[in-house]
């Protein structure tokens, strides 16, 4: 499972939690890991001047500078790299999301691991991701994308309870395939959760409790109809909760001791840059106490090979 992991990092403390997850998973599943850093956005023409994505300053990305960045990466992740001598370090110049996607395609990776943004937007609803980078990577990646935004969302030793949160979108189907594949591979339990977003189905005050409960029952039936057959042999829990999706998902993770959330980065949602409080997935990433994987395509399912890694 997860034969190749691409850990895309800004090499800042904001990515420390993601680094832990990436290397812990590589150890557990015997993965080849690449530490990947995008240096900056190039200036005009053939110039080697780039705008460093971390500092916003314009620097001269000549060979010496790039080697310096390599060295900085080696120092930042010295402890982890000591355990993974075969780990690769790669540096690229360009627009971050494009370079990450390019590297992932080039190496045909099985999982991209991302850390949070170095820029913290103000307010209670923290936008923990760099602009639309997560959105663009999650939407276009051919493999699953795992984003870690807080130390609490770490890989704690395995995936025994896998939560697939669905809105029944087409993209959700790929996420489901991935989630049930992981659950089967690890011999874990599968949870399927749909959240009835009450505000979307009419004024809450106009809904009777029987009306809500009818909708809940309908959704439970739909989950069984759409996914039930494909979970044969898997310990399965089906739940439908009403409320605000990211709140209910976060609560479910906490209450049920979920180790991994798998969601589609729904294409039905408004561009996260235009939403004041971020997408559902972004909010779940910011709040859940476990890693969150977004899957939009069925191309990469975890393989049966792999196991404990040696150093």
């Amino acid at each position: 499972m997860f034969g190749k992991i691409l850990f895309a990092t800004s090499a800042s403390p904001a990515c420390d939690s993601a680094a832990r997850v990436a290397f812990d998973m590589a150890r557990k599943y015997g993965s080849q890991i690449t530490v990947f850093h995008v240096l900056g956005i190039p200036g005009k023409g053939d110039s080697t001047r780039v705008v460093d994505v971390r500092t916003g300053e314009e620097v001269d990305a000549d060979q010496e500078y790039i080697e310096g960045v390599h060295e900085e990466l080696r120092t930042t992740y010295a402890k982890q790299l000591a355990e993974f001598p075969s780990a690769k370090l790669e540096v690229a110049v360009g627009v971050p999301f494009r370079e990450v996607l390019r590297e992932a395609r080039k190496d045909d990776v099985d999982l991209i691991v991302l850390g949070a943004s170095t820029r913290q937007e103000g307010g209670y609803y923290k936008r923990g991701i760099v602009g639309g980078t997560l959105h663009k990577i999650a939407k276009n990646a051919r493999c699953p994308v795992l984003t870690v935004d807080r130390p609490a969302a770490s890989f704690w030793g395995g995936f025994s309870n896998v939560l697939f949160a669905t809105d029944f979108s087409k993209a959700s189907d790929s996420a489901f395939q991935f989630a049930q594949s992981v659950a089967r591979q690890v011999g874990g339990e599968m949870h399927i959760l749909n959240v009835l977003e009450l505000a979307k189905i009419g004024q809450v005050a106009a809904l009777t409790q029987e009306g809500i409960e009818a909708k809940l029952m309908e959704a439970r039936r739909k989950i069984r109809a759409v996914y039930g057959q494909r979970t044969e042999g898997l310990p399965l829990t089906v739940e439908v909760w009403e409320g605000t999706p990211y709140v209910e998902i976060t609560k479910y993770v906490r209450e049920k001791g979920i180790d991994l959330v798998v969601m589609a980065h729904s294409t039905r949602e408004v561009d996260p840059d235009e939403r004041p409080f971020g997408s559902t997935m972004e909010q779940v990433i910011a709040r859940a106490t476990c890693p969150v994987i977004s899957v939009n395509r069925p191309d990469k399912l975890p393989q049966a090979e792999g196991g404990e890694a040696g150093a």
Partner: protein
Amino acid sequence: MAKKILIVDDDASIRDYLTTLFEDNGYAARSAGSGADALKMLEQDAPDLITLDIEMPEMTGPWFSRTVAKGGTYDRIPVIVITGHAGLQYVIPKAVASLTKPFDQAELLRIVRETIGQ
């Protein structure tokens, strides 16, 4: 009969410190250096409260907590998280408190008293 506390921490000095602290304050304390040992000790004699480290080799605190929760039998035992890492205070669902090392022993004892009494 003294209330029983199970200390789960891979650091022997922390285990010794907490054992002494709790016993000096009228509790019966046992300790486990790993999540696996703690699970065995739960079976032998269920405590009234668990203090739990987060980052332990072999079995992390959250993994221990999930294993206990799955079993169903011991998931009602209150847990106090004692961790050296800021940012991990809330990783144990339903923990009653979380203290970061170095912690105030008076604060710890107050929380223990509030949770399981004297």
